[in-house]
């Protein structure tokens, strides 16, 4: 079947289209070249004057895995207060801050998102996480496997294991957990928490293994570089949320020695200690460092005001934040000595000095990083705000007047402490297409997503160009997933299954001989039961395994 989108204004930064008027043809889920004059499209959509972009990609959103389920269980009132009745097409679902799997998929698709990446997939929880993500309809999914606090890696490093052995372990983890990248959360810190450490700085040795976070970051970043994995090491750094952590973050940037590194929810890592309240913005210094270091990319983790829940693997910082829980209930736990988990419900308040300044810091970073290819639009859903607030965030970035109106309503001390009011930059549609489509696809190595070139997967979103960017991005006219119309004017019209994106770097399978006795001795599952295969993924809701190329096969 041939589908034509006629006369739209195309924003496709990968292929150099910045509002150019062009028809798009789709056949069998892919974008194809214009057929000859004789061919008549079976479906024709007149999108003249409308804005056409690739489907949006959320490269950091907590949508599956242990902690999300704990957040759901902890907040039944969040579900009671936000109910979606079933329709002919969609099933009943619920949830605002910690939405159910179904609500997650429907709402992402309604907003024009077609792929979501779960950033903290514990290897030991991988099966559960993939099953949950399989239950999320329509959008494609992928996960970043969590390493850097597991006993095995830290023990290998303590023994002074060869980098090649660690590379094999990293590649094996990616392979058997069906992930597309590696994330490290508070490197060594989650583990140190279990030995009663309550903070662990970049160059502090961990109590049990005697290894520094800096060494863990370097080892893992080197492994991904050696393996040619496209997505750089995804780093949730030390000292999240601690005033003064801007210095730690800057040292982390310089400490990676030029290797590719992605700093996630960097807003939470950009705090200084100036001013009367010893809490200030480090956004300018962070943005300057990102601008200066082309090996660094970041997503922001913007906060927006209202009720949400913070769910993180960083049990050290969540334990510190537990006294701010609102409503007053929280969970901090270990997960099989693989990593940790902390869930703390939270309400960001615009009249609170700290929250208001956090809001401003996030926006300062967005607007001060020059290269939109290296900064990504996230709220670290649900930690900064639920993903349903994205259209509001987009308007804040694209509309200076609106932004300054919001700024004027905040805690006045925070507004005065921020340089946000003096920033005049407004994101353009092209930059927005980079930040939410082309950029994430590039940094994840998704060659056929995030653009509208010939051969790309036909994930397409069509918007009416409205001055109110929030309304524009909340309700796209059409959303196509793999060539099928899934949402029309903000309503789901078809429910499909999404693919699971993975990478498969080459490695020596001999690593399993070394891992098998470790699993038999220490882990809750045997090695043979640990691995997840493609068949199992598809049984639990994934349409297919989409394997993406590594930069190079490793030299044997």
């Amino acid at each position, binding site marked *: 079947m041939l589908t034509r989108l006629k006369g739209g204004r195309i924003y496709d930064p990968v292929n150099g289209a910045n509002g150019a008027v062009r028809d798009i043809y789709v056949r069998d889920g892919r974008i194809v070249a214009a057929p000859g004059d004789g061919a008549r499209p079976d479906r024709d959509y007149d999108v003249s004057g409308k804005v056409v972009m690739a489907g949006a990609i959320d490269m950091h959103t907590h949508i599956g895995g242990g902690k999300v389920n704990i957040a759901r269980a*902890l*907040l*039944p*009132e969040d579900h*009671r207060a936000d109910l979606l009745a079933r329709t002919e097409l969609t099933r009943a679902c619920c949830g605002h801050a910690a939405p159910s799997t179904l609500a997650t998929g429907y709402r992402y698709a309604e907003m024009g998102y077609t792929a979501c990446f779960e950033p903290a997939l514990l290897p030991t929880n991988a099966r559960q996480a993939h099953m949950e993500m399989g239950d999320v309809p329509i959008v494609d999914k992928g996960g970043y496997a969590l390493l850097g606090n597991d006993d095995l890696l830290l023990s290998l490093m303590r023994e002074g294991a060869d980098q090649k052995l660690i590379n094999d372990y990293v590649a094996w983890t990616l392979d058997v957990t069906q992930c597309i990248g590696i994330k490290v959360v508070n490197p060594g810190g989650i583990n140190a928490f279990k030995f009663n450490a309550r903070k662990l700085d970049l160059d502090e040795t961990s109590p049990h293994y005697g290894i520094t976070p800096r060494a863990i970051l370097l080892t893992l970043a080197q492994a991904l570089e050696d393996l040619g994995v496209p997505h750089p090491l995804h780093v949730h750094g030390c000292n999240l949320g601690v005033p003064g952590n801007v210095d730690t973050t800057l040292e982390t940037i310089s400490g990676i020695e030029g290797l590719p590194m992605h700093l996630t929810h960097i807003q939470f890592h950009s705090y200084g200690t100036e001013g009367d309240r010893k809490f200030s913005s480090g956004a300018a210094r962070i943005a300057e460092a990102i601008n200066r270091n082309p090996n660094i990319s970041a997503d922001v983790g913007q906060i927006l005001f209202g009720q949400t829940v913070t769910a993180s693997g960083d049990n050290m910082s969540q334990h510190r934040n537990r006294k701010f829980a609102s*409503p*007053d*209930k929280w969970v901090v736990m270990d997960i099989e000595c693989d990593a940790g988990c902390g869930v703390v419900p939270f309400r960001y308040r615009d009249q609170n000095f700290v929250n208001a300044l956090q809001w401003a810091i996030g926006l300062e970073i967005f607007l001060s990083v020059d290269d939109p290819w290296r900064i990504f639009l996230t709220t670290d859903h649900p930690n900064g705000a639920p993903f349903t607030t994205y259209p509001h965030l987009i308007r804040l970035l694209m509309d200076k007047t609106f932004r300054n109106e919001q700024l004027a309503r905040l805690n006045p001390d925070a507004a005065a402490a921020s340089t946000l009011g003096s920033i005049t930059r407004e994101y353009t549609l092209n930059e927005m297409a980079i930040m939410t489509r082309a950029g994430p696809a590039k940094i994840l190595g998704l060659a056929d997503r995030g653009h509208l070139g010939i051969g790309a997967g036909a994930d397409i979103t069509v918007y009416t160009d409205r001055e109110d960017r929030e309304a524009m991005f909340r309700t796209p006219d059409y959303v196509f997933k793999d060539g099928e119309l899934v949402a029309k004017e903000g309503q789901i019209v078809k429910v499909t299954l999404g693919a699971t994106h993975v990478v498969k770097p080459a490695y020596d399978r001999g690593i399993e001989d070394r891992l098998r006795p470790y699993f038999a001795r220490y882990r809750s599952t045997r090695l043979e039961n640990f691995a997840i295969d493609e068949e199992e993924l598809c049984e639990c809701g994934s349409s297919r395994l989409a394997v993406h190329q590594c930069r190079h096969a490793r030299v044997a």
Partner: protein
Amino acid sequence: MSRLLLTLKAVPAIGVDCSPLTPARLAGMSSAAIAAIELQSGNRRLPAGELFDIAGEPGDTLVIRNACSKLDRIGACMNGGTLDVEGDVGAFLGAGLVSGTIRVSGGAGAFAATGMLAGTLHVCGSVGDFLGAAIAGDKQGMLGGRVIVDGDAGDRVGDHLRRGIILVGGNAGDYCASRMLAGTIAVRGKVGALPGYAMKRGTLLLAGAAELPATFNDCGSHELMFLRLFARHLASVDSAAASFAPRGERVRRFVGDRANGGLGEILVTA
């Protein structure tokens, strides 16, 4: 004063959410409009006219006749007026009651008066578990008002109770006043195992000897001014459940639950 009469035609097969049927909501509506109100029942929505015969004039008083335990959420979030129920009712009776009076001639199911803010709820029969308790996920149960149960109450009476008065004329089940934060519960009959379990503050009044958890400290025998004031406060209540605090009586006072640092009190009359 105008009264609206809703008479249940037949016992429904599954539970019906009756929360839309409150005096304030129905005031000024025609019989046809009332008959058209849709009530959720399982995964279907039924028009009220299919379930009830409708008579009288809507106004300050609503009477539901022939009621049965399939009618859930009667008077939930009701704001003003009087709701008189003849028969038994289901779960969540008077949940989130804002103001007004609800009287039930029969018994009620679980979670009666949960989240209730103010007003009066009087059940002439017995109630199920979790009377005035918090529903799963909530940090507070009943938040105010007055609940009178002439019969027995199930387990977990006043779990997480935040404010208000609960009077039970008969017996109460296990874990009475568990995790209670504040407010007053009085039980005229016997209580089950572990009254005051994890209690933080508030008062539980018991008539006669009861087996208390070991984590309550005996603070001796007292004649408390509070009890006289309490008795005067309840003088207008027309129920044996309220004839609790005789003038000048001494009570034994126990404080706990010390297992979690609580300073609640259990007062036991001699």
